């Protein structure tokens, strides 16, 4: 057996005989197992619930009786975002952004501009998921199990004795790292089981799951190296523990907590109220479709009459009110899109700033990569909002088109006075059936990988930093004897 493996085997033997190490590891494994099973069950349950609600919402929309198309525009429609399979591993911002939105004519969907997006939603903390256990508790257990691995040898004198046996510092470090790496691998086991389950049973993408496993392995490996380095470079085990707890608190709790706040302060996002007021101001400036003297809509009317070669809206072959609704929807949607793009640009900048803190915190680096690979990052939410908005616009314009083509201008004008006209403007409900159902298109694997690149690159940076620390520690061990 090589010296490295001998040292690792001895270290495992010592850990098996250490009550604290055994208890800490057992607790983590138990938490990890609980997190794995509850997350998988929760995700399956939520997904089934969402699918049921979506089917119910579709049925209710399709089952509406004969109505005026504009009534249907305001009847609205619910859409639900299905959770990606890997959300069971890392739900990311999902729990904070929500996955249900109400779509209605002339209004931006209910999720956009919400104050919940103020914090960039990167500060999520405390959900018992496999990701949380490994990101936050995993390093803590490695600290408690490994802080004394070399420092105690120095304190007790065995380090000097080991050196006197002709043991090279690098063999000692490699053996200790192998031992603690084995513990990290044990911690990773429930997560690997969870990822395997999601791939086999829930059809999660294999390469995404593999990359997730590699990301978490790199993260834990960094902590293994940090623990060994601190244990090698400090005078005693107590100091090693204090330094490592400080490092854990700083990089795993404090920096990830304050990074989004700093990002928000650096690039503030207007509140929902401010955005609503700004949109109303802009709408007032653009024009009011109900005001016959409004310059924009007066020009629209003139241009429409010219296009059809008539002089009065009554003579148009289509219902002018429907055309007006289409134009109004186009204008308001364009305005909503403009504000939405601005918001997403600011959020992207906030996200970049927050991810930049990944140079100070490997936990931020991992979270960024983990959420991107799981499809539960803010980009996933943005994708859902964009698709939902495109869907909203399409169905509203389809209903407006029905108003223009299936309802006459005269009936539309008399529907409140003439019961026959009121009956005729209620068009056949088969039209609601023709409206296609909302189908969410999740990010492709390529897109997820691209989104994960900054986080993965930062993780590699931390891995290199860990290796450099170990090299330094190896030199220090020799010098300290």
């Amino acid at each position, binding site marked *: *057996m090589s*010296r490295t493996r*001998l*040292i690792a085997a*001895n270290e495992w*033997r*010592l850990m098996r*005989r*250490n009550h604290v190490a055994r208890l800490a590891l057992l607790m983590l494994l138990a938490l990890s197992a609980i997190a794995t099973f509850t997350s998988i069950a929760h995700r399956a349950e939520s997904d089934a619930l969402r699918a049921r609600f979506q089917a119910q919402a579709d049925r209710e929309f399709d089952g509406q009786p004969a109505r005026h198309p504009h009534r249907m525009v305001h009847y609205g429609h619910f859409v639900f975002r299905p959770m990606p399979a890997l959300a069971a591993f890392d739900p990311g911002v999902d729990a904070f952004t929500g996955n249900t939105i109400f779509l209605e004519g002339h209004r931006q969907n209910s999720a956009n501009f919400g104050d919940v997006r103020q914090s960039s939603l990167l500060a999520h903390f405390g959900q018992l998921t496999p990701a949380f256990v490994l990101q936050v508790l995993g390093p803590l257990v490695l600290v408690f199990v490994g802080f004394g691995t070399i420092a105690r040898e120095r304190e*007790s*004198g*065995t380090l*000097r*004795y*080991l*050196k*006197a*046996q*002709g*043991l*090279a510092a690098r063999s000692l470090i490699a053996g200790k790292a192998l031992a603690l790496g084995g513990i990290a691998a044990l911690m990773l086991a429930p997560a690997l089981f969870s990822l395997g389950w999601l791939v086999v049973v829930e059809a999660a993408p294999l390469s995404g799951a593999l990359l997730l496993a590699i990301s978490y392995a790199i993260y834990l490996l960094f902590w293994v190296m940090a623990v060994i380095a601190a244990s090698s470079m400090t005078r005693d085990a107590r100091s090693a523990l204090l330094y490592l707890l400080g490092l854990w608190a700083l990089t795993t709790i404090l920096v990830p907590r304050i990074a989004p706040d700093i990002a928000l302060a650096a690039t503030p996002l207007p509140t929902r109220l401010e955005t609503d007021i700004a949109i109303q101001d802009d709408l007032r400036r653009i024009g009011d479709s109900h005001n016959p003297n409004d310059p924009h809509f007066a020009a629209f009317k003139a241009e429409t009459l010219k296009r059809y070669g008539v002089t009065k809206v009554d003579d148009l072959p289509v219902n002018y009110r429907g055309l007006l609704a289409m134009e109004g929807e186009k204008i308001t949607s364009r305005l909503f899109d403009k504000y939405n793009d601005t918001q997403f640009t600011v959020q992207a900048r906030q996200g970049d700033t927050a991810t930049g803190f990944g140079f100070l915190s490997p936990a931020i680096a991992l979270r960024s990569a983990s959420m991107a690979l799981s499809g539960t990052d803010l980009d996933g939410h943005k994708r859902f909002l964009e698709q939902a908005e495109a869907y909203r616009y399409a169905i509203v314009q389809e209903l407006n088109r029905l108003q223009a083509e299936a309802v006459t201008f005269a009936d539309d004008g008399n529907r409140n006075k003439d019961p026959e006209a009121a009956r005729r403007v209620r068009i056949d409900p088969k039209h609601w059936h023709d409206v296609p159902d909302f189908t969410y298109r999740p990010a492709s694997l390529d897109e997820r990988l691209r989104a994960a690149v900054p986080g993965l690159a930062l993780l590699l940076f931390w891995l290199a930093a860990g290796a450099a620390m170990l090299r330094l520690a190896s030199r220090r061990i020799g010098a300290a*004897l």
Partner: protein
Amino acid sequence: MHETMTQATSTNAELATHLLAENSSPPPIEITDLRLVRGSRTVLNGLSIKVSRGEIYALLGGNGAGKSTTLSAILGFLEPDSGVIRVGGFDPVLEPDRARTQVAYLPENVALYDQLSAYENIAYFLALSGREPGRSEMDGALDAAGLQHEARERRVAGYSKGMRQKVAIAMAVLRDVPVLLLDEPTSGLDPRATADFNALLNVLKARGTAILMVTHDLLGAADCADRIGFLAQGSIVDEVRPSEGIDVLALHHRYGERTAA
């Protein structure tokens, strides 16, 4: 008859080759004009010692005389400012790992893994040196060191200083290396264990091991050492051979005189 003569000739030739090799091989421990400064203090100042195969050299000196520093330098833990150290022909500064393969070291305070038994400690440390002694081999060494049978399976957390010392002695015996460094080896031992230990040293000496021990124990040194060097202010100020018949009282007097200088 012819066969017997051929055998005898062959044995003589082997012996001659062996003796030649022994004479031409470097001395197990050779320190020449060693100088080592720590901070503003010169700890070793022109120290020279040579310990031959099968010789026990005792280094005596007061606190701060440089005894333990000498051992640390031999083990390559400290880099001298000048001078030469060779352990089995290897420079412990330039080739620390190779030099340490030649040395078994018995520290004053023996450090063992408290959660392991004596057997487990021995097996682990020896495995790191590339040796895998069987249980009977370990028992033989532990018997020679004087550790009771019933204690050997117990975790060493409950061991006394003397018992730990015995485990370390057994390890040193089992390592079977040309050089043995001892730092106050009998400080935790009772008189009987000390006598056993001295007997054990003689066994190792007979095996050809070069033994360098640092100690305060003048009587113990006089009992087992071939030469005693008095270390004061970083160098050997006097050297005696107990075999030359110096009585203990005179030796004590001479030691006090030399080291006080």
